[in-house]
């Protein structure tokens, strides 16, 4: 839980000429490409602090700049070791860009990094305040499926579900707005060197919002799927 904010990275030397590399991607002495440090995270690939707000244009520029240097195309005529390292570095760069440019995936990644959320562990329990509405929605979905297979008139149910879909769509917007606020708190906390307990509280809040978001998202997706192909 209390992982340090940024783990110290071990110092390294060049695999080819033994010069200290100071964690650079290329050896300052012989210019050979260097492996990624073991515990580097996506933020450090881009030289960014662990903040949740980032400018998309700047992120893209940085991504393209690094791609020029690291892409396997540049290493076709080099030895196997260099080709392997380029493959490793450029795949991680692409993985990092894929996650960081998506605001929701970015939050999820930060929470994993901070040890708040375990990879692959998804809480699918309904948040208590949504319980009743979600129950009702699932009931309507069941009715719709039954009505469909019985070939009955779907209009009334479809309208009801459209209303529910819209309602949950609005809730999704609300969660997104709340996540934005919590993200701003996190960034501000980093700047102000907030206490561990304060940071922990913000992370827990983010985690809760993320769970709620994915729950609502699944509900909406379920409705969309059932309503596909029905008119009105």
């Amino acid at each position: 839980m209390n992982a340090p904010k940024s783990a110290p990275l071990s110092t390294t030397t060049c695999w080819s000429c033994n010069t200290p590399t100071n964690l650079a991607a290329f050896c300052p002495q012989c210019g050979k490409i260097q492996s990624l440090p073991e515990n580097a995270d996506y933020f450090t690939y881009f030289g960014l602090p662990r903040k949740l707000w980032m400018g998309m244009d700047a992120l893209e520029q940085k991504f393209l700049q690094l791609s020029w240097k690291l892409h396997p195309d540049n290493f076709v005529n080099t030895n196997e070791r260099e080709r392997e390292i380029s493959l490793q570095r450029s795949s991680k760069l692409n993985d990092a860009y894929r996650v960081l440019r998506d605001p929701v995936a970015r939050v999820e990644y930060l929470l994993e990094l901070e040890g708040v959320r375990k990879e692959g562990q998804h809480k699918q329990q309904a948040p208590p305040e949504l319980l009743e509405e979600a129950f009702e929605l699932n009931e309507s979905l069941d009715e719709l499926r039954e009505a469909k297979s019985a070939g009955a008139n779907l209009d009334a149910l479809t309208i009801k579900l459209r209303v529910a879909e819209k309602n949950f769509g609005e809730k999704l917007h609300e969660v997104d707005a709340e996540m934005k606020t919590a993200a701003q708190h996190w960034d501000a906390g980093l700047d102000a060197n907030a206490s561990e307990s304060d940071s922990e509280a913000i992370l827990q809040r983010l985690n809760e919002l993320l769970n709620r978001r994915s729950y609502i998202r699944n509900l909406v997706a379920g409705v969309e799927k059932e309503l596909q192909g029905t008119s009105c």
Partner: protein
Amino acid sequence: MGRIVGIDLGTTNSLVAYVDSQTGQPKCILGPYGSTLCPSVVSLDPDGSVIVGEAARRRLLTQPERTIYSVKRLMGRGPADVQNELKLFPFRIDPQSKNVIRVMLGDKMFTPPEISAFILRELRNWAESFLGETIDRAVITVPAYFNDAQRQATKDAGRIAGLEVLRLVNEPTAAALAYGLHEKQRGHVAVYDLGGGTFDISILKLISTNEGDIYQVLSTNGDTHLGGDDIDNFLQAFIHHQVLQNGAFDFSSSAEATQELRKSLIALKHELSEKDSAVLRFTLPNAELFTHEFSRAEFEKIIQPIVARTMGPVKQALADAHLAPSAIEEVVLVGGTTRTPLIRRTVQEFFGRKPHTELNPDEVVALGAAVQANILERGVSNMLLLDVTPLSLGIETYGGAVSKIIPRNSTIPASAQEQYTTGVDNQTGIDIHVLQGERELAKDCRSLARFTLKVPPAPAGLPRIEVAFLIDANGILQVAAKDMRTGQQHSIEVQPSYGINDTEIERMLEESIEYAEQDFAERQLIEARTESEAILSATAKALANPQSAEIAASERSNIEAAVAALKQSAVATDYKQIRKRIDELNHATEHLAELLMNSAVSTALAGRNLAEV
């Protein structure tokens, strides 16, 4: 290091291109028949030699049992996958085929990568004789929507042909490279690529930076079984039905008649790209003449479902790129099938702008492959290609569901790590099943590989093994595992679900060298003889036709003299002499050929020779 060539290994035609070091521009290499297109047809001669390209294409009619076309449709697929193809294509598949299909040519069996390797070897010969140097490295293009197994099979074909495949490039991306170099345009570009057997749509962003130009693929989609072949199949089914209805003939009873009709329909299809109507005139095996006039409208009605099928992937690719059709600044058409006016119109209406057709749609992919080859050859260049993986990579989880670990349209190379542990004490293995596809259940996705992670006996939950899945710049999967407690790398034996292992490839490589050991002149001789057989048989058939009674006695004796001369030269070994005599016979039969056709058609076909009629 020698030059790297770019190869477009197509369903219908294949090409090889290089970058001219003087001009810096890519160029396609001409083959011995004076065309840059090498028909993707392979024929096994009864004497055991392999014939590829135009000469093999001509054998489709005379030796259908020993000749194969459109083999790309079989690449990387299992016997169960191709049942639908078998209804429409005369592939003779070994019923004993297990994971890898084996196709019969005459009495010999070959895998699809071996057959593709014959085509690659032929192109390699073209390049070597044109450039005057040994070629052993290549960039080969594949449909963007090819899955891992199809890509691996293409790479295997390269190895069997003795080529180091430095990169597999997606066809629409290659086209964008050639196009971008040619037009110097920047912004969002859609590449619509409808070839002989595959359809791809790719959305790219062309960016200029201080270091040079970046071609970033944002999304791709497609259908690896949709193309001009399907148009031919639709037309064929339409005619079969018409003929059968008249009670005239059942095509399913004759492979030869089917091939002959297909050839006529392909010519008709090409004609309808230029003209508003065209007439099919076909002599049935019972000597009855079948004619049908196609208007452009009727033709378009028949092929409409195929054009419509391309639009689903187009919309999905745009949605994945988060772009509206109006955000696309340029549209590029690739593949011979995009010459069809209905396709041009449909694409233009959808995007609201006129598509680019300046570059030859048959050559543009090979040209782009040559550009990429040149980038790799130079090491560091002023162009960079960032491509994506077309399909999501997933692993099977509890209950047959799939957990996606690398989403589709991720920039490649891309990777994902998964941690595994044991569920019971002293468990020694963990089974892992890797899949590709968008569906939620494992049974609906493409199985790529299964393997068992070996675990030292320990209490349940104690072992921690990290498996790294990596999709390389070719779109091909690599798997590695690491024991997190000891830091040791595990070796994994990954058995691909539909693939050939390394030992088999080595054996195939050796065998293919045996096939290739004929020298160029010998091969030319065989091809010239084949061609002479074709023209001789066509001439004999024409002279037997009652209508040929109309020709003058002098004309008949001229033809007979040319026939005798050709027959004589064909027993000798000078292929140039044979070609000369073929030309002479073609010339002597020009009038006869015209006569045998109705006047309306004869004006359209003026100048064609008997073998083509």
